[in-house]
């Protein structure tokens, strides 16, 4: 068994990032798109914490905490927008939300 190096964690983070991007680009359900965005942010966090371990200081972990805070704020606002839009037009498909004003 090859010992686990930083590259292993970076590969996992890249895989999660790409899966998140696939989710954002291909799904129609708005909630699943928002969850894929959370997955992307998590992949970035994993990357940062892996590098923080590699260099031996805590800057990566502090920045990861900021990203978690940011993701929480963005999830709340995104879901708020979704609910507000859902009240107007009863759909949760991304490709049906295509009119600026009707």
């Amino acid at each position, binding site marked *: 068994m090859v010992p686990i190096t930083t590259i292993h964690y970076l590969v996992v983070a*890249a895989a999660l990032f790409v899966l998140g991007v696939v989710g954002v680009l291909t799904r129609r359900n708005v909630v699943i798109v928002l*969850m894929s965005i959370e997955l992307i942010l998590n992949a970035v966090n994993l990357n940062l914490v892996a590098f923080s371990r590699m*260099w031996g200081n805590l800057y990566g972990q502090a920045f990861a905490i900021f990203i978690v805070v940011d993701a929480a704020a963005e999830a709340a606002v995104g879901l708020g927008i979704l609910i507000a839009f859902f009240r107007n037009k009863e759909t949760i498909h991304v490709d049906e939300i295509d009119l600026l004003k009707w």
Partner: protein
Amino acid sequence: MNPMANPLINSGAAPVATPFFFYLLAGLSIVGALLMITRRNAVHSALALILTLLSVAGLYLMLYAPFVAGVQIIVYGGGIMVLFLFVIMLVNIERVSRERQFNRMWPVGLLASCALLALFLGALEKGKSLLPDRLMQIPEASNTQGIAALLYGDAGRMGQYTFAFEIASLLLLVAILGAVIMTKKKI
């Protein structure tokens, strides 16, 4: 910064993480992510995302970052996912789960993501030589104190990220206000 000059690299402590746990947690997180983007039912996707988030918290523990792992479990697992589940239950319509789940451009999206993955793996392959060949040991016992020193400052001085911390709390306030105003029926 020369990694060999860091005194922590020669501490020589035995690694906590065994490859078994790494592969288990990484596998669980990727399986969870795959399940999340393919499920028809949004609640199943949310449960799969919870699996992914908890596995990533485990990976943080293996990376000697217990505080970030704790924050991940509390904020993501106990906060954001509960929020997602609430909203799924509020906006879930029965007919939605029987309609088309993937949009019309899905081959293009998949192709672009594969190109992105190839780009990432290429960059990792090329940049492998830049990384130092031994992982450092961050002292785990004082992890919380170290992050607190960065965020709050110690010995009377401001930390490096104190200003950013205050801005982050303002960001959360703005987000709360925005979410409340947007979801009110009458402003």
